[in-house]
């Protein structure tokens, strides 16, 4: 995990002072972040900080109360989720959200159905199967009967099938054994090396700081801190509040 060679590449995703509310409850009050092409960025924070809300806003699943979101310099806020996926953002949601009564293969193929079009399907599928050989073995099994780790692989694979330029993941480590988490995080690094920009939401701060280039810390709906991973790992507040040191 070398220091980012992507540090000076063009900005891919720009989230500019967004606010998001559920009815009267303001979940995100002021979040700004930038993800450059090729980077692996972590967004960390504790329960209820607004991580999921931020990702859902980027995907167009929640409307913005304020601010703007750009992908490759073009505004994408206000677009429906299907258009945003078509622009190149794939979202691995919290809790995986697979289709339990469909087979693994069907789940994966649905990921390639970007607004009704299927592109480069076979080749991408082959890549996904090489990343996650377990999925190839179990491609005819119903997704609902997979183990937790396999379900997470399936959710990541499904998102990759859309051939995204930006892959966003919401707590992929949730509820998984440490060995499985390690292997999935290795997959993320591999996916990133292969050219996909990654925005990773995590509560597992130690692990996330171990693999990202830079990170943002979100607290109570606003960005509290940001910086390269080493700087954040040394930050006294991060050490005390998130690393238990």
């Amino acid at each position: 995990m070398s220091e980012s060679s992507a540090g000076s590449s063009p900005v891919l995703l720009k989230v500019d002072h967004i606010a998001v509310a559920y009815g009267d409850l303001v979940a995100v009050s002021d979040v700004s972040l930038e993800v450059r092409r090729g980077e692996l960025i972590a967004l960390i924070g504790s329960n209820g900080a607004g991580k999921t809300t931020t990702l859902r806003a980027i995907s167009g699943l929640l409307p913005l109360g304020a601010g703007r979101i750009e992908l490759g310099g073009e505004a994408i806020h206000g677009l429906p989720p299907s258009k945003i996926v078509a622009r190149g953002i794939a979202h691995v949601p919290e809790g995986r959200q697979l289709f339990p009564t469909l087979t693994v293969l069907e789940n994966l193929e649905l990921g390639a159905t970007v607004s009704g079009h299927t592109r480069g399907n076979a080749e991408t599928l082959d890549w996904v199967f090489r990343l996650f050989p377990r999925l190839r073995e179990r491609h005819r099994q119903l997704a609902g009967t997979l183990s937790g780790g396999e379900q997470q692989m399936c959710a990541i694979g499904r998102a990759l099938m859309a051939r995204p330029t930006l892959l966003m993941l919401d707590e992929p480590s949730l509820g998984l054994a440490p060995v499985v988490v390690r292997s999935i995080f290795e997959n993320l690094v591999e996916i990133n090396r292969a050219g996909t920009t990654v925005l990773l939401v995590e509560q597992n701060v130690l692990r996330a700081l171990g693999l990202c280039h830079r990170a943002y810390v979100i607290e109570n709906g606003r960005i509290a801190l940001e910086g390269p991973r080493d700087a954040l790992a040394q930050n006294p507040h991060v050490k005390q509040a998130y690393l238990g040191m």
Partner: protein
Amino acid sequence: MAVGLSLIFGVMRVVNFAHGDMMVWGMYLALVLSERARLDPYVSFVVCAAVLFLLGALVQRTLVDRILDAPHEMQILLMLGVALVLENLALMVFGPDPQRVSSSLSAATIWIGPLFVDVARLTTFALAIVLTLAVYLFLFRTRLGRMIRAAADNTYGALVIGTDVRRVYLMAFGIGAACVGAAGALVSGFLPFQPAAGLSASVTSFNIVIIGGMGSLIGAFVGGLLVSVAESLGAVFLSPSLKELVSFSLLVVILLFRPAGLFGRRAT
């Protein structure tokens, strides 16, 4: 008909009380086509399906789309409203008297072994099987069908991966209505109908869907067979007016032992 209902409920979890009236409209359409265009209902059911597809899509786009996130009660109310409008429109246009479509097959009967069978009913039964199979193949062999199943399985998941869920709903609702329209035309040759028949048809088909298991096509088909057998037996052994009693007792008994219906998945 129950297949259509199962499809709509399965995907959208919208309880569609307008289905019975859509079926009645399918029947009247078959009647008009038979009188004006000399089309036999066993031919015109294709037209009825197409027209009902459009009607279903229209209702979905203009009305149901607005209340998908609303609680179930609201959806039931809306669909009851649609049902009332459809029923009274039929009343205005066609009058209250029972009607029946004449089909070249209506009078024909054949012997199959020891059984004396009505050709019209037999044809309807065969076409119902073909229709169920067609819907099944559509759902399991086509891309759109797969999207409909995915949206039924996990709507949020479908949205996250970029499925145009509104379009999927539109198709599911349209296809559901088309099944109902076809069913209406197919039974119009031997079941007399009137505008008021819609509600009881809705209730019966609900019964079928619940017995079979919400959202299961095979369940809808098996449930349909069970209910019609139970009702015929009830009509023969008890009294024709008590046949609903039999099918509802069947419903209660099945729900006691299989709360999710025969082929239903347990809610998680």
